[in-house]
Each structure stands twice: as C-alpha cells, then as structure tokens.
C-alpha cells in the first residue's frame, strides 16, 4: 500500500513539477515572535515591500515563502532544512538574530544552497565552498567611521562607556583599534548592564579622565542612560555612538540629554536629506514609497532596508544566473551563488555591494554616513 502511494506520489510529482517549478523560489526566515521580534518584524515588512518592488526576474516569476523562527536558533535550523528539502528553494534569506542566522548559514552551506544573511555574520561556516554572504555593515566599520569623525572633529581624549556584553566589547575594541599617536586616545573602559538602575559611578570615572568626548557603546533605549547621567553632571563635550542607538524610544528617553550626539548609520536613516548624487538617494526614496504602499505606514528603521537590499542583491545575481541554468535545479543554485559572489558595484539602500570569495560582507565606507540628533530628529552631517 505504502509502495503504491509512493509511486503515485512520484508520478504526480513528475507531472506537476515542471509546471510549478518554472519560477524562482525564495525561502525567507525571520523572527516574528520571541526576543528578536522587535527587529524581526521590520525585516519581514522589508521583504514584503521588496517583493512588491520586484516580483519577477527576466520574465521568471519569483515565489516567496516566509517562515517564523521565534528567535530560536533550533527553529531557524528546522525552517532552513524544510525550505530546502521540501520546498526546494533556490535561495535562503534570513534572519533577525545573530545565533539563528549562524545556524541557518550552517544548513545552507551543508545543503549547498546560496544564502543572503540579513544579520551580521562575523565568521563564515567552515566549508570548502562559500555559500553565504551577509548584508549589514560590520560593527568594526560602524566604529571606524565614528572614530574617524572624532578625529576630524579634533577630539583627543575619549571616554568610553558601554554595555557589559559582546556589543560593548565590539565597540570598545573597534575604538581601541582606531587609536593612534596623533589621533584619539580611549581613556576609560566603563561598563554597565542593560537592567542597571544607575550609571552615576561609571560616569564619575569617565568625567575624572577629563575627556573631550564620550563614546556610547550601548544600544536602544538604555543607551540613553549614560547621556542622561553626563547631562546631570554638566558634561559639555561631544558625544558619539553607533547606529545601535537609533530608534524612536532612544530619542524619547534621551530627550535634551541626547541632543547633539553623532552616530554612524546607514544612509537610509536620512534618505531625504542626502545630496542628489548620493548612490542611495533614489533607491532609498523608492524603497520608502513602496514600503508605504505595501504597509500603509512610513518606514522609520534601518532593518527593513537590509531585507530590501538582500532582495536587490538576489535579483541582480539571478539575472546573470538565469543565462546558464534553470530555476529549481542544483545547477541554478551553484550559478546563483557564483553570481552573488561576483556582484560588482551594486547600489542598494544601505551600501554599494561588491562581494568576493572569502569575505562575508561586501560593503565599504560608502555604506555609512554620520548623523546628528538635532531637535529630536536625525540630521545628515557630511
């Protein structure tokens, strides 16, 4: 009985497959629930906007399958396997949290499916061939850009205060790497936890070092706490941070104390203020209007734009891959991977992408601008 069923299934599969498999299938995973949902939801909205923006490549329809991983790496692994083995996707895109993204990347490399990661991947899976690239700007670059800005502003002694976690370490190490004899000197390394009730002691220590400027290695709402304490103690110097601080709640909580802070961020944050010749100007405005059309709300975050860029990278690579293979085949996956890894000067919302074998990211310093918080809104500071 089971044998007959299997035979019938195979027969049906053979007759149905060519008809249904003439299009390109994309498997997209994000975190719509769990602790990564505050950024996972924008990722999902970004991919939906991108799908509306470009539904076909060279006349081939694109089919998009979305799954939720609940911010759980094991669910992300299961989703990736299901998408590849059952849905036979040509490409994976995902996901919102770093651990889940790494888990997905391992599956993609094992099953030999190209993957575009929308969260930072520091280390590629250890496989002979590279199947994974990642869209976001690496943290080291975020810090480098802001360190260069401190130098340009003539800052010498920098006080550092950040989270007592991996993110705090990343920002501190990035700033340390940017130290030089004639340039900036990082004088303090103060840390606090996201749930702390006060950073008075740490700020006293920072102030005791008499810094020209303070670098804030926090993120989101709680990144405002050092700024509030600095204001309370009458600190008059400049403050700097990274894109991790950029969200509406940070601006609300920080209020006057956060005024004037400069952060490095993707150009999409200030799309409408960019000069016309800037690579991201037109595409970012297109992205905003298609996002508005799809969801009836304006986009205020940088995360949805990462999904959008992943889609642009895919569409650009698929155009070239379609010349040599048919979607739904192993050959097409390989061709798509080769095409992605040979992406040249592709302008996106966040960056100009150039991928090459052996590197996870394909962005350079053009992918970041410095913005300053002025009167509660982010202003572009060229």
């Amino acid at each position, binding site marked *: 009985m089971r044998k007959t069923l299997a035979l019938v299934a195979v027969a049906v599969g053979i007759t149905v497959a060519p008809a249904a498999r003439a299009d390109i299938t994309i498997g997209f995973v994000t975190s719509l629930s769990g602790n990564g949902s505050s950024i996972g939801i924008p990722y999902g909205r970004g991919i939906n906007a991108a799908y509306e923006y470009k539904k076909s490549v060279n006349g081939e329809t694109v089919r998009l399958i979305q799954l939720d991983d609940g911010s759980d790496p094991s669910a992300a692994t299961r989703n990736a396997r299901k998408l590849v083995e059952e849905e036979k996707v040509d490409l994976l895109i995902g996901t919102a949290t770093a651990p889940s993204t790494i888990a997905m990347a391992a599956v993609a490399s094992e099953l030999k499916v190209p993957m575009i990661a929308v969260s930072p991947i520091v280390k590629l899976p250890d496989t002979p061939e590279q199947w994974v690239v990642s869209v976001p700007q690496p943290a080291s670059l975020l810090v480098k850009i802001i360190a260069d800005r401190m130098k340009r502003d003539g800052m010498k002694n920098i006080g550092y205060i950040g989270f007592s976690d991996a993110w705090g370490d990343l920002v501190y190490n990035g700033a340390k790497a940017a130290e030089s004899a004639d340039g900036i000197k990082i004088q303090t390394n103060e840390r606090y936890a996201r749930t702390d009730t006060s950073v008075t002691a740490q700020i*006293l220590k920072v102030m005791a070092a008499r810094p020209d400027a303070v670098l804030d290695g926090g993120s989101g709402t709680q990144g405002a706490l050092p700024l509030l304490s600095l204001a309370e103690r009458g600190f008059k110097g400049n403050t700097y941070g990274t894109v991790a601080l950029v969200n509406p709640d940070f601006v609300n*909580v920080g209020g006057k104390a956060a005024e004037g802070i400069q952060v490095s961020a993707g150009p999409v944050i200030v799309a409408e203020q960019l000069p016309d010749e800037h690579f991201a100007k037109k595409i970012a405005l297109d992205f905003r209007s298609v996002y508005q059309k799809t969801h009836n709300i304006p986009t205020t975050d940088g995360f949805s734009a990462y999904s959008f860029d992943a889609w642009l990278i895919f569409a650009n690579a698929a155009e070239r891959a379609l010349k040599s293979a048919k979607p739904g085949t192993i050959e097409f996956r390989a061709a798509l991977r080769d095409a992605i890894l040979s992406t040249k000067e592709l302008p996106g919302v966040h960056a100009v992408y150039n991928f090459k074998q052996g590197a996870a990211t394909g962005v350079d310093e053009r992918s970041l601008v410095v913005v300053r918080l002025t009167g509660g809104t982010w202003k572009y500071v060229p």
Partner: protein
Amino acid sequence: MTSDIAAILAIDGIATGAIYALVAIGTVLIFTVTRVVFIPFGDIAAFTALTLAALDAKRFPGTGALVVVLACLATLIEMASLARSGELRLAPRALLFYLVLPLAVVGCAWLATRMDPPLAVRLVLALMLITPISPLLDRIVFRPIADGTVLLLLTVSVALHFALVGLGLLFFGPEGVRTEPLTSLSMEFAGVLISGQTMLIVIAALVFSGLLYLFFDFTLVGKSLRATAVNRTGSRLMGIRPARAGTIAYLLGSLMAGVSGILIAPVNTVFYDSGFLIGLKAFVGAIVGGMTSYPGAAIGAVGVGILESFASFESSALKDVIVFSLLIPILIWRSLASLHSEEEIEE
C-alpha cells in the same frame, strides 16, 4: 577617589538602596505572614513603572489585560472551591472581591486613557491597577499550597517570576520606558547636589518602614498577621483567618512595590525584565535583616545600594559579582549568629 566623589557615590547608593529597601520591606512582610519568598516583587515594581508610562502616553496599559485574566481565573478557582465545600452562600461576596473590584479598577483605567487626567490621578490609577495582581496570584497559585514547605513555596515563586516576565514581554513589548520626574527640585547639601527625586525615594522608604513597624506592633490586624506567620494552625484556633491575613499582606506588599516602581520610573529606563535584579538585590538586603526585621531589611538594602555604587566605581564590569559574592559571608555570619528555631514542625 576624592571626598567629593565619595559623597556623590554615597548619595547615589542611598537613592538606589532606598528603592531596594521598599521592595525588601515588602518581601519581608509577605515572607513573615505567608512564608512565601515572593521573587516576582521586582517584576511588580517594573510593571508599575511600565503602567505609569503607558498612562502618560494615553495608551491602555497591558496591566489591565493581565488583571482581567487573573481576576477571571481567581474567580473560577474560588467558585469551584466554594462549591466543593458547600458554601455557595458566600458566592456573592467572593464575586465582589475577585471579579467586580478588579474589573472596576480596569474600567477606571480604560476611562482614563480616553480623558486626560492630571499626574496625581495617573499615579493613583497605576497603583490601583498593580495592587490586585499579587493577591490574585496568591489566590490562584499560593493558596492551594499554603501549608507546603518554604522550599516548595520558593520554587513556585521562582517559576511564577518567569511566567510574569514572559507575560510582561507580551503586554508591554521589548522597549524600555522612562517617565517625567515627579519633582524638578534639587538642593545643595555640603557641596553635593541632591535631586528632589532622590529625596522623595529616601523619604518614601523611611515613611513606609516606620508605618509598617507601627502597624505590626500596635494594631490588632498587624498582630494577627504576625500570629499567622508564627503558627497557622494556632492562629486559626484563635479565630484568625490565615487566607485573609495573606491577602492583606499581599495587598500591602504590592503597594510598596508599586510605590518603588513609581519612584524608579523617572530615574531609570525600566524594561519588562528589569524587575528581577531589583527583586534579587532587595532579597539580599532582606537576608541581611534575617528576613524577619523591617528596619534590618531596610538597612541591609541601603547597604547593598551603597556597595553597588562604590563597586561600579571601582570596577563596573564586576559590579554584580561583588554584590552577590558578599551574600556568602553574610549568610555564614547570619547562620552562626542567630539561634535556630526548628522550622517546619509537623502540625
């Protein structure tokens, strides 16, 4: 470290410690009456801050939904137990306390989001919304196991904390909040600036510990609460209802946690999961006081706050390690210094 810095650190520590003290006093209160180490106390404080912020933003706070769910559950359980013991004539009263009152409070809060009430009204509303939570949780979770061992009650209490944190994420979302300061006063004291908010926190802690001391030593209700703590069976023979004593303790305790939540909200960003560390440090303070003495708990909690402040200055990354490491010598000292009365006597 100069004397100026030491003074600033000490004041910062006292302010933080006073917040812990309020929660610590509530913890001791509930422990002495019901023998439950109520770990979710910090969460109650955090939820108050989040509730107040929602009311400030004219959003209906997630606490409302939480209270409605808990009230329905508690009513069901109460009705079932009344039906089992054949005391259905008490049903109307139970309905009033477990369903009508909490729902009335939620209704008021909903009305408030439609209007624009002044700050004082919002503060009272936030406190009113938060106070039913602990007694309702007590009815649902702790009363069926009221005669269990301290260890069983503690385990359930930890589990309850995790459930509440999950619900907090569901109702309040992942972002933190901060409210407007209650007062913008500040005064100079021996060359150090002290903000009015700090003064408020310290005064609130002093007033509440004083009031509780008076309540327990000089009123009949307070004495009956203490009697319940010493011996449930004995106090029942004397005509005291342990269940009612527990409810009173939970109400008072929630009020304390609520006040501390309102005091924290302007000085720090509060997240749905901020409560745990506040509760834990308050617990450390309470242990210093031996879990039985209110002044002891308050002094212990202020000590934890000051220690934390100086530890952050010396080594900010190791702050919590220092605070919690101190627990061990304190516990050893307490267990050597205090005479053990045999707890858990078979009744």
